[in-house]
């Protein structure tokens, strides 16, 4: 049961990472990076590392996303590749 949950979370995080790298809209890339971070947070709860999980949810998915969104808002939104 836990093994299948591990597979699902790993596949979802890899899909989010590939989409965040490939998409051209930088705001969409940042939001996909936040979703990737959330799946990693769930993966660490499943691995038994609860302190890493809630630090990741607060700092990784929260503060990093806010900093990225501010930067994308102040600079160009569309990437060439």
């Amino acid at each position, binding site marked *: 049961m*836990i*093994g299948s949950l*591990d*597979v699902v979370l*790993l596949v979802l*995080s*890899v899909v989010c*990472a*590939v989409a*965040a*790298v490939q998409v051209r809209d*930088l705001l969409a*890339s*940042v939001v996909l*990076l936040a979703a*990737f*971070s959330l799946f*990693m947070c769930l*993966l*660490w709860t499943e*691995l*038994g*590392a*609860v*302190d*890493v999980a809630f*630090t*990741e949810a607060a*700092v*990784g998915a929260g*503060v*990093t996303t806010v*900093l*990225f969104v*501010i*930067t*994308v808002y*102040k*600079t*160009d939104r569309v*990437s*060439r*590749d």
Partner: protein
Amino acid sequence: MGLIEGAAGQLNTVGYIVLMMIGIYAMTGKSNLVKKLVGMNIFQWSIILFVVSLSAKRDASIPIVLDGHGGGAAPVLDAAQYANPLPQVLMLTAIVVGVAITGVALALLLRIHRQFGTLEENELLERLDASSGS
């Protein structure tokens, strides 16, 4: 309990290698600087995933003592029942340091965009050549 033979050993090994390849591709193959930073974040989390996977054990609980409040004497702990807390705490530090690195890098990107008006690497190099040549 071997090095990789944790709770989800093989699976997480495959996962972190794939994530690391995605991060390296984004850092080297993409020309937009924000994309490179996104790749750096993915690379960082893949390494954190590797170290946290080392701390996991089969049929183990989270590293909090189960009957810590019972009785006067200290309870006898079986270390195999709990996940190893040392790699988790080290990676806690790594997450916070990573956010600080990301913040400094984004401040540098804002400065670069204010001076050169672009965040694409090839245009940036052309403008650097033009400004140094003239």
